[in-house]
């Protein structure tokens, strides 16, 4: 018998050690910015998954609580700087954002969680549009399209922390990210967390074991908004500016896509999605104008073929790993073949998309498109032929390798079951 929670504790210790060391290894300014963004995205993604994954509520407007809390935080920091408001350490300011998120979550959540399913999704969209519209009307609070500037350097805090240097902000985000992640993990193991799952799976039965489904959803919504607000506050501290886009549909869409790609069915799924998508966004959006198209296609592909997200795909292999790890090795050739054919198809398709984008968006005919390190003329015939050929060959290959992969997985699963049974 192992000590309960020992595994979680050791994983946690490892993660914390990694978070401390990471900025010392990769210490470029850009990398630090990306890591800070990732930390915020992780909190927000986990908060979002309290709704989507744990509670079965699909929201198209959760950025409202992220953004509104960001605005409140910016105003509070400005108020502290002007000494209009009593001082509190910036280290604790995420709590202000959390409370702001909670406040709006309780208020708006009461109306929107009266309905579930599709109606809830549409209502969340309506509130997202309403919030975006209000940013242009209530200038006093939102300051229109300009947004609200702020300065995180309010006063020197413990150990001489000023939050002037980015590295200090990174550690602030890292600490809060760990606290929030642990808190949200623990919430899944409370009566509320269990009933939230129950309402997701079978809202009808929940009523007949004494629970008011609206109350459960409302509570989930409010608590989720608290953590979204916490992330929003850290965003305000990190970039020292909150604009109308933070409450908008775009922000909500990105978090939804992140969480879904990561996987809604496992607690770590959203973390995975937040890390992956933030990294890709940071490094690909400069290279390719078609980045959002790829993101959308990945998302649609996941919905169609892997509704469990990346975490779901990984966890599919868990029974095999536990029963007989050597079976995983036996699947390697099938995986390699599928990967190879996919790569060929991808290279072709990406080439086509990049050339199409180049032709439609580039005005000057003199610049050449640089694709895979090769300068070429996108209006020419040959690059298109090559890309079409690659895409077709890859697709043809995939149509052979993927069934084989599925077959290999089936065999491995079968043998794993036999190994367990014997």
């Amino acid at each position, binding site marked *: 018998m192992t000590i309960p929670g020992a595994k979680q504790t050791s994983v946690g210790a490892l993660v914390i050690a990694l978070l401390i060391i990471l900025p010392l290894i990769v210490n470029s300014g850009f990398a630090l910015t990306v890591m800070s963004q990732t930390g915020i995205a992780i909190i927000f993604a986990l908060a979002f998954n309290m709704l989507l994954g744990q509670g*079965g509520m*699909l929201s*198209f407007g959760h950025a409202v609580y992220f953004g509104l809390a960001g605005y409140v935080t910016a105003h509070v920091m400005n108020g502290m700087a002007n000494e209009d408001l009593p001082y509190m350490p910036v280290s604790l300011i995420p709590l202000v954002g959390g409370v702001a998120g909670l406040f709006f979550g309780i208020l708006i959540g009461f*109306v*929107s969680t*009266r*309905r*579930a*399913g*599709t*109606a809830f*999704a*549409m*209502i969340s*969209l*309506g*509130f*997202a*549009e*309403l919030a975006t*519209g*209000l940013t242009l*009307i*209530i*200038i*006093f*609070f939102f300051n229109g399209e300009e947004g609200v500037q702020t300065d995180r350097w309010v006063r020197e805090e413990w150990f001489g922390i000023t939050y002037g240097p980015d590295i200090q902000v990174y550690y602030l985000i890292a600490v809060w990210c760990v606290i929030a992640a642990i808190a949200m993990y623990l919430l899944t193991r409370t009566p509320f967390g269990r009933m939230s799952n129950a309402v997701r799976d079978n809202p009808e039965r929940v009523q007949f074991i004494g629970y008011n489904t609206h109350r459960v959803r409302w509570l989930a919504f409010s608590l989720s908004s608290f953590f979204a607000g916490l992330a929003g506050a850290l965003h305000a501290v990190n970039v020292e500016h909150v604009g109308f886009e933070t409450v908008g*549909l775009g922000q909500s*869409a990105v978090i*939804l*896509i992140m969480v*879904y790609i990561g996987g809604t069915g496992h607690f770590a799924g959203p973390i995975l999605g937040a890390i992956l998508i933030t990294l890709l966004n940071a490094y690909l959006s400069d290279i390719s104008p*078609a980045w*959002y*198209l790829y*993101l*959308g*296609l990945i*998302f*649609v592909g996941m*919905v*169609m073929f892997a*509704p469990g997200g990346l975490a779901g795909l990984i966890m599919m292999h868990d029974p095999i790993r536990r029963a007989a790890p050597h079976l995983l090795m036996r699947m390697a050739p099938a995986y390699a073949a599928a990967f190879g054919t996919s790569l060929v198809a991808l290279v072709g398709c990406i080439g086509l*998309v990049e050339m*199409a*984008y180049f032709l*439609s*968006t580039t005005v000057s005919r003199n610049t050449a498109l640089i694709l895979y390190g090769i300068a070429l003329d996108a209006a020419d015939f040959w690059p298109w032929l090559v890309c079409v050929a690659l895409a077709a060959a890859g697709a043809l290959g995939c149509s052979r390798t993927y069934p084989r992969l599925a077959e290999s997985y089936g065999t491995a699963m079968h043998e794993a079951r036999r190994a367990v049974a014997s």
Partner: protein
Amino acid sequence: MEVFVFSLFNGVLYGMLLFLLASGLTLIFSMMGVLNFAHASFFMLGAYFAYQISQPLGFWPALIAAPILVGVLGAAVERYALRPVHRFGHVAELLFTFGLAFVIEEVVQMIWGKVPVPYDVPPSLNVTAFAWQGLDYSVYRLFMLLISVGIFVALFFGLTRTRIGLIIRASLTHPHMVASLGHDVPKVFMWTFGVGCALAGVAGVIGGNVLGTEPGMAIQLGPIVFVVIVVGGLGSLGGALIASLLIGVLNNMAISYDFSLYPIFSLLGVEREAEGILADLVSLTTGAIAPLVPYLLLVLMLILRPRGLFGTRDV
């Protein structure tokens, strides 16, 4: 008086355009339980297709061909992409159409660029139909009204008086029964989805040249259409019609009258020289809040009547 008549007219016109979208969305929703998030994207495709076709061939062929193309595309999407997702449930379907909307917007940018395309009102219709008290009303607007009312009437008779309409209405409530009577329900689904998208395509063709044809047009109109069907009551065509007209008229009235909202606030004892948040409120006019009208209506409806105007079922 003339302002009233004109804004009523424009409001009804905008409302009917909304209804063209909302009716297809409602048909699809009530039959398949799928809320097609990409519905406004098909509207956008209608406008872009019409632009592309009208370049060489002119407006009239585009008016026929673009909606058909959009409808076929919609049917293909249902058949090859949405149907496999069906087994994962309605939330997965909603997520799929959401992803589709995202992808369509990017593809439109990829093909036609990020700036608006010059899709214009055909010159033959761009003439004044009547002028009254110094305000012009163009033939094209009358034409839009004619088309949308015509489609509404055709839809109404098609659903109530024809055999296929009977099957569709039966599939709405009793899909299994209809299937066991020997009708191919998946095929009915596919064509409903296609026709719903084609209706959105028509709205795109006749509305794109007035509202502007650009990659952002779907995401601007989409949420309003969703509000229409939630306010009208999910699954109710009559509710969708009333909600469309209500939102269309309210929106246009709010813009053309542009009342100051100060009198309301002064009743609450707010000074005109107020500061802070109140300063923003006293200077508000109805024109400024016009874009918010649909969403305010949504919130009001949720508080007063969560099922919507004519909602019959909870979702």
